[in-house]
């Protein structure tokens, strides 16, 4: 029997990044292969190539012995490959059924056969025990439910090969366990599975074999039997990893940031922050742990003046801040590393220098009255590029020319460059390289040690655990517990995140 999936010598060059460098991989029926690697290691690129979404520069991909052509995604799907994409591939305004049938619709002539579409979805959902409402509109569903739709979509054809690209990022630890169970059962029934993740315990739990990628290169194969979590981690980053960041004990001072009875609506006008109270003292890091989509984003945006506060107050050093005015909030003393750096943090086709003064371009020394002081802007930029190790030939280059990690450094540098009272960091290390992650972590701790109050929101539980002095767990729009990080236990926090009474 030939292999289900056979990748040989796959190479893909993106502008400035060799995303896949001569990678080979085979997957047999009934086997679970984990692709392990850090953000940017090239995992998604590899599986997108399998799905015909990316054109390899070199190498070949065969599914059940047949060569895959770039662009023939429909053919790949027909050959029995299903994929759960890292970024949901769902049309927000359409129903669950419409999303699942898209691309291969049950039809009567030109028309879509609504009844049989709906029936298919219901059967599918029964078969895998993943309950969904076939008529619900995607954008009205919580993220976990959307993930379910995404999985059902991948499973719709009798799949022989199922690819899951970081499917657990938006799930609670308990939902993750359920998903891993589904994966194991599918494998038992003969489906070949490629599971992408950078969470080591998931790999240990289900994988038969592990391929570790780093910087686009295949570092090697291993298996949970031959290796342990520490060994995997070392392969992944290429050196032994410090799981805990070095930091001195916190010396918390006065309350710097106070959130009182905050209520906020999400984009769908549903109450998603349901009366949150928080106090962050100067000189401490308060981490907010939680599964994405439990109101963290809305909480941060409301604190930073980017989203309307339905009720409640946000105070800096006892003074209330203005609603819906990010700049006023900024001037009141809250610096913010926004979650969406491309949208809010940067102007892509401005120079790095201009981006570094984006929120103070009209203040001294960068402007004298109406006239900008361009030479000050430039000398500031040169100093910051040096100090924050922003990798660019010149501060005059456009921000869009930077890599993700360096873009984030620009944002961080700008927010830290002032006398900092309160820093709100939302997903500050998402999607960036390890070097930059370490750098930013150290900056956050340095800011704390200089006396800033830091509110850290992250979907990475490990990040929260290693940086925070206290941890607030958010679930269903509420802070369900605040624990001292000394007493924090992964499992316990996981249960709180899932909304269980621990």
């Amino acid at each position, binding site marked *: 029997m030939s292999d289900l999936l056979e990748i040989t010598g796959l190479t893909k060059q993106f502008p400035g990044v060799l995303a896949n460098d001569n990678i080979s991989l085979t997957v047999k029926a009934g086997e679970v292969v984990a692709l392990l690697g850090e953000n940017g290691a090239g995992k998604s690129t590899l599986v997108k190539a399998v799905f015909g979404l990316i054109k390899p520069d070199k190498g070949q991909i065969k599914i059940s012995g047949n060569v895959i052509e770039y662009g023939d995604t429909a053919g790949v*799907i027909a050959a029995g490959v299903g994929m759960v994409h890292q970024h949901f591939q*769902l*049309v927000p305004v*359409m129903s669950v059924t419409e*999303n699942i049938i898209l691309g291969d619709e049950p039809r009567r002539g030109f028309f879509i056969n609504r009844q049989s579409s709906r029936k298919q979805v219901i059967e599918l959902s029964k078969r895998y025990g993943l309950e969904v409402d076939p008529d619900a509109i995607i954008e009205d569903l919580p993220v976990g439910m959307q993930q379910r739709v995404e999985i059902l979509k991948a499973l719709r054809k009798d799949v022989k090969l199922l690819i899951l690209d970081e499917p657990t990022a938006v799930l609670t630890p308990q939902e993750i366990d359920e998903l891993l169970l589904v994966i194991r059962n599918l494998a038992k029934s003969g489906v070949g599975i490629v599971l992408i993740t950078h969470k080591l315990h998931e790999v240990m739990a289900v994988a038969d074999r592990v391929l570790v990628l780093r910087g686009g290169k295949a570092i090697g194969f291993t298996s949970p039997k031959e290796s342990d979590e520490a060994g995997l981690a070392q392969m992944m980053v290429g050196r032994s990893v410090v799981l805990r960041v070095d930091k001195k004990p916190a010396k918390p001072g006065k309350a710097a940031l106070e959130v009182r009875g905050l209520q906020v609506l999400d984009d769908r006008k549903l109450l998603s922050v349901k009366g949150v109270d928080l106090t962050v003292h100067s000189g401490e890091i308060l981490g907010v742990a939680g599964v994405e989509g439990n109101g963290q984003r809305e909480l941060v945006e409301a604190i930073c003046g980017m989203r309307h506060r339905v009720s409640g107050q946000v105070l800096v050093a006892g003074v209330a801040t203005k609603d819906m005015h990010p700049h006023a909030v900024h001037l009141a003393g809250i610096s913010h590393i926004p979650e969406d750096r491309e949208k809010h943090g940067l102007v892509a086709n401005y120079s790095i220098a201009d981006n570094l003064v984006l929120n103070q371009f009209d203040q001294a020394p960068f402007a004298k009255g109406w006239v900008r002081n361009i030479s000050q802007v430039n000398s500031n930029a040169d100093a910051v590029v040096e100090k924050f190790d922003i990798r660019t030939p010149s501060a005059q280059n456009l921000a869009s020319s930077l890599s993700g990690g360096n873009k984030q450094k620009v944002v961080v540098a700008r927010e830290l460059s002032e006398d900092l009272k309160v820093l709100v960091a939302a997903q500050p290390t998402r999607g960036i390289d390890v070097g930059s992650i370490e750098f930013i972590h150290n900056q956050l701790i340095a800011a704390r040690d200089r006396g800033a109050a830091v509110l850290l929101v992250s979907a990475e539980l490990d990040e929260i655990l290693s940086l925070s002095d206290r941890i607030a767990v958010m679930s269903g729009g509420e802070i369900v517990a605040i624990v001292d990080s000394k007493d924090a236990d992964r499992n316990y926090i996981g249960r709180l995140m899932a909304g269980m009474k621990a």
Partner: protein
Amino acid sequence: MKYLSKRNLLIVLIAAATAYFYSKDGSVTTSVVSTATSFALPLALAAMVGIMCERTGIVNIGIEGTLLTSAFVAFFVSSLTSNILLGLAASIAVGSLLGLLLAVMAVTWKMDQIIAGTIINILATGLTSFLYVQGRTIPSTFPEYDIPKLMNLPFFGPVLFMHGPLFYFGLFVILSLYVALFKTTWGLRSRAVGEHPSSADTAGVSVARLRYINVAIAGAIGGLTGSFLSLELVGSFERGFTAGKGFTALALMIFGRWNPLGALAAAMMFGMTQAYANQLMIDQVIQIPTQFIGVLPYILTIIVLAISAGKVRPPAAEGQPYEKADA
């Protein structure tokens, strides 16, 4: 939903007013509404061009240019060949070519779509005014064809069933587009491409191909509209013949919320306003300086958009070139 009811209320109000006028003076009201229908149909058809494009994510502000060019081609080909059917065919061909041009600019070259549309408009003005010659005529317009039996219906007969063939065909196009958009696989895929192209792409639907096809078909509808104007409704052509109808159509598209029937209703509303205003002028009930009669639709457009634009949600991927994963 809130706005839907407000909108429906408007339609009901207009219908009620019409019924009231009809009860008072049947023949005048019938003629007013039938004028309104003739006025509305080309606008509605032109709005279909916009809907076709925007539903798959391409902004088309070149409708005006498409109408102008195809009306020009329809007229001059008919005139040169003495055959209006050839004129019609040529205008549809030219319309789809302009659609393809937009597709090349927007999909393949990933140009700014507003600018791409503007280029089509300016190109259309330049070409038609350079090539225009005065004093030509066409053998005839498309003749009115009254549908037997149905034409005898009171009110609805004259309003709907006593028109030329392109009118009926246009109406058919609008209704089919509605069905196609919401009931067929093509429609589902097109809307997916307009809302979230990568979802369609990962489901095996070719975004670029569908956009090309739809924009070209939209162009053909624009061509049909041009023919309708110059070969059926008016029977002549001058420089600047379409006088902004292509832009009004965009407003109708927005007001009709990217729904063919919505745009048709909006166009009817425009037509009725215009026709009633004309009638009131004739009856000497109101007096509007002649200069303003023609711009009534534009004023209406601005008012309508000021009410509705911020509240409706256009297709999410509109105006953005699709960057495949393999950019």
